[in-house]
Structures are given as structure tokens and as C-alpha cells.
């Protein structure tokens, strides 16, 4: 998939801006980004509530509000993920990169290894990629597909504890407690997942800014107007 698109581009004489990230992908990205930030902040304060308040219990609804906002953003996150997976089917070829890893392709793994070397300063030869570079694709898959589904499943399983037996959340996600009967443990893994997101957000923002600074293509603007721009007309392969 990726290789065909590349050879097609390499045949082209000039490498003008290529439309990669369609509108639904970009909208999803920013909605997802906001949802993740809100989920992390509210999630942290559910695990570590703010200092205790005085007065009557009926005067406040702090924890209740944190939980409500957390649940609403969780719905946004989960539905967004579903829409994004749907778009991977009907969208352009680059929309599938996030969901389908070409693990069967030896060439792809070689390119992953090149990116590892590139980011470890073992080589100065930068590659050009229309969509994501293979290493980015791999890490985005881990975060969005694996961790995303993991957080949705554990999150709604924990949510089902409040909605109760027989509720939709219990019917759809109660099986989590068959795999891990201790809900305290499920809570903990859900919480660890939050920290993995924090880890991801820091590195993701850095790597994208770095694309603009030290690579052969654009970074941040791609997710704003959807176009991939290259800084040179050289071949796609590392040089």
C-alpha cells in the first residue's frame, strides 16, 4: 500500500503538496486530542481528589462534576475511535495507516529500523514519507488502536460498576472482570494507561515539532490543512 503510493510519487517529476489527511481525520485528531487531555486531567483528579471542602455536602458537587466530565469525554473518545475506524475503511489510503500495520512486509520493517537509527542519531539520512513514517505508524497504532481500545474497555467496565448489572455497559464490557476479577486492578491498569497517554502526548508533540525543524517534510501544518509538503525534490528513500 505504502510502497505503491511511493513509487507513484517517485515517478512524478515534482513533489508538490499531497493531500493526505482528509477532513474527518483532522477533525477526529483534534477532538481526540481534546478528549484525551480532558480525560487525563479529570482522571487524575478522580484518583487524587482535590483538597476536601467544608460545609454541607449539598453545597458542592466537585467529584460528581469531575466524574460527569470524565464520562462525557469518554463517550466522545469512544465514539470518535469508532468513527475513525470506519473512516479507515472508506477514507483514502493514508487513513488506513493508523489501523493496519503492514507487519508482513520486510521492507516496512527495514524502514522502521531506519527510523529507529535516525531518531537515535545513528544516521543523518532522513527519509521522506507521504503519510506517517513507519516508526510513527507503529507507535500511533500502539497508542490509538491498542491503548485506545484498552482504555475504552477498562473504562466502560469500571463505568458499568456504577450503572449496575444488566446495564448496556455491563453487558458490553463486563467481561473485563472475567479476565481480571479484581476491579481495583482494572482501576489501576486504567490509571497506568492515563500515564502512558501523558508519555505519548509529550513525545508526540515533540516529534511533530521536530519534523518541522529537522526533517525533509512538514509537521504541524499537516494536521491543520491536510497537506504533506516536502522540503526537497529528492527521492523518498533516506538520504
Amino acid at each position, binding site marked *: 500500500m505504502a510502497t505503491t503510493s511511493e513509487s507513484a510519487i517517485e515517478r512524478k517529476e515534482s513533489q508538490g503538496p499531497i493531500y493526505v489527511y482528509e477532513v474527518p481525520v483532522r477533525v477526529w485528531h483534534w477532538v481526540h486530542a481534546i478528549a484525551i487531555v480532558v480525560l487525563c486531567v479529570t482522571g487524575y483528579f478522580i484518583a487524587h481528589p482535590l483538597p476536601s471542602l467544608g460545609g454541607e455536602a449539598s*453545597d458542592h458537587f466537585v467529584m460528581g462534576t469531575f466524574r460527569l466530565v470524565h464520562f462525557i469525554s469518554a463517550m466522545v473518545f469512544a465514539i470518535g475511535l469508532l468513527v475513525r475506524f470506519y473512516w479507515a475503511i472508506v477514507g483514502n489510503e493514508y487513513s488506513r495507516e493508523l489501523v493496519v500495520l503492514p507487519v508482513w512486509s520486510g521492507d516496512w520493517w527495514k524502514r522502521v529500523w531506519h527510523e529507529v537509527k535516525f531518531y537515535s542519531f545513528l544516521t543523518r539520512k532522513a527519509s521522506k514519507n507521504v503519510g506517517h513514517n513507519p516508526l510513527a505508524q507503529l507507535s500511533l497504532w500502539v497508542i490509538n488502536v491498542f491503548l485506545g481500545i484498552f482504555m475504552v474497555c477498562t473504562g466502560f467496565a469500571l463505568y458499568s460498576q456504577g450503572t449496575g448489572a444488566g446495564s448496556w455497559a455491563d453487558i458490553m464490557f463486563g*467481561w473485563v472482570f472475567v479476565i481480571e476479577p479484581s476491579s481495583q486492578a482494572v482501576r489501576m491498569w486504567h490509571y497506568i494507561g492515563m*500515564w502512558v497517554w501523558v508519555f505519548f502526548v509529550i513525545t508526540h508533540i*515533540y516529534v511533530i515539532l521536530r519534523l518541522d525543524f*529537522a526533517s525533509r517534510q512538514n509537521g504541524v501544518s499537516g494536521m491543520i490543512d491536510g497537506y504533506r509538503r516536502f522540503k526537497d525534490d529528492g527521492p523518498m528513500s533516506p538520504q
Partner: protein
Amino acid sequence: MPAKETFYDVMRKHGITRRSFLKFCSLTAAGLGLGPEFAGKLAHALENKPRTPVIWLHGLECTCCSESFIRSGNPLAGDVILSMISLDYSDTLMAAAGHQAEELLEQTIEKYDGEYILACEGNPPLNEDGMYCIQGGKPYVEKLRHMADHCKAIIAWGSCASWGCVQAAKPNPTQATPIHKVILDKPIVKVPGCPPIAEVMTGVITYMVAFDRLPPLDRQGRPKMFYGQRLHDKCYRRPHFDAGQFVEAFDDEGARKGYCLYKVGCKGPTTYNACSTIEWNGGLSWPVKSGHGCLGCAEDNFWDKGSFYSAVTNLKVAGNVEANAEKVGATLATAAAIGVAAHAAGTVISKATGKKSKQAEEVSE
């Protein structure tokens, strides 16, 4: 005397009046959350059905389940149930001892093959062929398997039988194993808790012997009527949780005012039990009511989840090293921040030296 006596016959023999019997039936029906018409159905069943024997085995345990059971808040229920089960086999409660007692087991199998209920308190250790728990000269696990082969259903009393409890805590040298991982071919009702609430125990056992079927169970095999909700869902301090009013330390103003104990490690939000509704010792109190957080004793693995006084639990980091989930996460995020800063510096240097070497190449050309 009829060939097979009913529960009612047994109770009358033990001096329980009809009036007490009917009171017991209505009380138990209410405790099980059944409608008013079930008091009559329960009485009818106990009057007409042949008595189902209950064999009560003890493995690795502390007898707190038995202790809880005989202290049922309602003495009536206690008496009635005791008269129902003490006839057969219960190491701690029965009069017989030694060979005489062990013979009772074989007699029950002969007389009631496939009909009796096996109530298991504690669990079998499997390591060293079960030599860590010997009863009557044989490993307990053999006795358990033998009795389970001929029983109708199993009740796993307490966290030991249901999940493993403290004897199964890491590193679990005796390999103490909960009943459902040893007996795979019989229906098992888990009644976790350390110990379970007396009324829960009497309710479950009465339901099973009277209606001749298992109570409705949740995914994990616990009776829904007692383990359907978390303590948190029915906790009388829940409004303080939603408001954001917490006990920060056990001697602060919040503790005196009875605020939520979540921040001092209460496991109510992750624990399924009936403590917050039935309470303990005849409705006298329960942990949160007495000002201490729930330990989560009815939950799987509660003994290996780190401090009882922290809302965030421990996890295994590497080998036998454990750390608070909080620290693991914060370390991860800090590592990312430091890594990014270092990498950014590396990128700048790499770019600068890269330019220089390119210029050098151009010059040499």
C-alpha cells in the same frame, strides 16, 4: 417416621416452634430480596421437601467464616440453620470426632450420593501434593475432591475458598488455590468476604436447600442479591464523595464530621458486598460506619494490592519489585520529558555538526 425427613421435621425435633419457623421463613425471604409471597413458598418447601444434607469442610482457613455464621444477627436464623446443618458434618460444630466423624462423610455419600451440598471453608494447598494441610492422615485436597465428586453443588465460603485470601498472597509457598480452580465439574457459589456477613451466609444456604437450585449468580459466581452492588453505591457517606468532602487524615475535622474515606484508602468503590446495607453483628456497624475505610476483603487479590490506606494500588514492576502505580506513572512521564529535552538538544547539535561536515565536504571538493 417417613423414609426421608424434611427440614421442618428436623427443626421441630430441635425444639423450634412453628411460630419461630414461620418467622424465620419471612425473615429469610426478605433478606433474599424476594417478594412477600415467597415467605409461604419457603415454608412450604422446607415442610415438604426431604432434607438436603450439608457437609461443611475446612481447608486452609482461620474459621472466621464459621465464627461469623454462628453469630448470625438473628438468633432465630442461626438456630434454624444450625439445626439444619449440624447433623451432617462440620469439623468445628459437630459432636463426633476422629474416625467417627470421618465415617459420617462416607455414610453421607452412601445415603445421599449426588444430593448433598458441599460447603467449603478455606482452600486446599496444592504444593508438595497437598501436604500443607492434612486431615485424617490424608491431604485435604483429596478429601475435597472425593466429597466434591458426589455432591450436588458447592458453596465456597469466604475469600479463602472464593479467591485464595491471605494464604494465597505472594509468594504463596503452599500454593493455596481457590475451590473453583480445583473442582471444575460442579456448580460453585462464591460467597466472598473475610468473613462473609452471617445473614448473607444463612440466606444463601437457605435458598439452596429450600429451592433446590443455585441463587442467581453474577459473572464471577457470586449471588446477585448480596454482591450485586458495590459498597460505594449504597454507602451512607456517598454524598460526601460526590461533593468532594474527604477525610485527609484519621484525626482531622473531616474524620470527625464523617466525610468520605476514599482518600485514606477506602476500597468501597471497587468492592462488591452487602456491608453497607445489611451491616455487621445484627446491623450494629460496619467498617465505614466506624470511621475506617473498607479493605476490600471480598475482592480477588485484595491482600496483594498495596497499602490499605492508599486509593492507588501497587503493581509489579519487575521480578518481585513492586511500586505504587502513581510512582510508575509519574516516572514514565518524567522520563518522557527528560528524554524529549535531551533528544531536542541532540537534534540541535546533530544539525549543527551536520552542516559543518557538509561545508567541510564542499570545501574539500
